[in-house]
């Protein structure tokens, strides 16, 4: 059963809200290239994990306002989508989910501004929402996007840095991936008036979940097909991303020599034998174990929230993240 069904979340409603946010913006000219790009980006879909996390988080509160939660869920996906548009430019990636990326279609400058529009529109919407009694003073755009950028800076800083420490890797992954997931859960809970301690527990749950998500992504670079990934296997290694499996593989002196020879000018075909050696080295198994431990930490937090019916939804999320194959 798909995750959203298991969580009883109508994702079509989130998609409708995302489109409504665009179409009800009187400042966006109808049928303009901007409107078409936005709607096309929304239609391209995605896992919609962050809207699901906002919704699950809201189930820990008592103030149930469906419309507001759906709006927050759509806002979380807007922030994520804006970051993906900019990521594709940073990575010079011509494809997104197997289709031409936005900058390939409309050019880099306009793609940057489409992403910027999505972020700015969210701030505009949340500023209005925050005017309501009981609104959250801290818009989650503030706490989420700076961390996302820091994750990108750290990734840039550590490209082809084979002396990177595990702590640096974990910090980068928390900033780049785990933080927005954690914040999505937390803000869903805050919007629904959940107690502070619960909001903090949900943040911690989301951080462990997000870290496991990133490690799983790292593993997929070695285990998934190009079709599943939408890019060739080994792209992370080739692009200088020192992921968890690579960190473990570097502990093997024989592999370390080969890994350290991978640089900005290495060709995809040159790393195929190395990819195979990493696959059979035990590094993937160790990364898998780390990933499972993170998920177990998330499950432990979920079990501590057993007084809430919604704790079962957290366990469903952990199960889904554990079984993700692409």
């Amino acid at each position, binding site marked *: 059963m798909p995750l959203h069904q298991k969580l009883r979340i109508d994702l079509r409603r989130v998609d409708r809200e995302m489109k409504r946010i665009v179409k009800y913006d009187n400042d966006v000219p109808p049928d303009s290239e901007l409107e078409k790009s936005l709607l096309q980006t929304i239609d391209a879909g995605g896992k919609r994990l962050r809207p699901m996390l906002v919704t699950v988080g809201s189930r820990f509160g008592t103030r149930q306002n469906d419309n507001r939660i759906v709006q927050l869920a759509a806002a979380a996906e807007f922030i994520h989508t804006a970051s993906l548009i900019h990521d594709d430019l*940073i990575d010079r990636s011509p494809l997104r989910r197997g289709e031409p990326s936005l900058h390939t279609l409309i050019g880099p400058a306009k793609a940057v*501004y489409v992403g*910027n529009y999505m972020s700015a529109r969210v*701030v505009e919407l949340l500023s209005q929402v*925050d005017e309501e009694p009981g609104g959250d003073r801290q818009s989650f755009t*503030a706490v989420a*996007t700076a961390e996302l950028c820091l994750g990108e*800076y750290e990734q*840039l800083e550590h490209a082809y840095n084979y002396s990177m420490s595990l702590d640096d890797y974990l910090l980068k992954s928390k900033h780049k991936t785990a933080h927005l997931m954690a914040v999505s859960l937390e803000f869903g809970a805050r919007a629904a008036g959940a107690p502070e301690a619960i909001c903090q527990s949900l943040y911690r749950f989301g951080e462990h979940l997000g870290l496991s998500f990133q490690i799983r992504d790292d593993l997929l670079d070695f285990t998934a097909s190009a079709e599943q990934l939408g890019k060739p296997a080994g792209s992370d290694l080739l692009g200088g991303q020192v992921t968890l499996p690579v960190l473990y593989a570097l502990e093997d002196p024989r592999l370390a020599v080969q890994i350290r020879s991978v640089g900005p000018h290495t060709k995809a075909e040159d790393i195929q034998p190395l990819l195979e050696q990493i696959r059979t080295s035990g590094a993937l198994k160790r990364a898998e174990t780390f990933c499972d431990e993170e998920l177990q930490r998330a499950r432990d937090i979920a079990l501590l929230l057993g007084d809430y019916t919604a704790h079962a939804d957290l366990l469903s999320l952990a199960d889904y993240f554990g079984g993700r194959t692409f």
Partner: protein
Amino acid sequence: MNDTMIREALERLQAEIDPVTRIRLKPEKSVLVEALTVFERCGVEPLRRPRLLAIYMLLASAFARHSEPLELDDTELTRRILDGDYLYSLYIQYALKCKEESLLRDLSPFVKKIQIARALGRDEEIPLLSAFEQILLNQKEAN
């Protein structure tokens, strides 16, 4: 007086910027002096002016980093995208930290319209200081 406020605003900002970004803000002094003149004309209390100046600098710098041309073969493109994104998010974060929610709220439609104009290929000059002036005058009238 202006020099002190400018120094204070720059010091505050540089302390907020994470070192990993390697961003060093170097705004033109004349632009900052002009902004301070506008703030004074709008009746902004002296203690508030360095805060506003810092917020103004962050937003202006974010816009500047994302200004055209933005080309794939530009070796600086990655940094420019990241810097613009980071400075914009820091602008929000810092405005909230300074309890300037109302300024943030009033500026949000303006910021959005700038992005729309740019996305539509109308990369005209950004009247950021005029937007600040209008909002600050409205705030003064409301008080």
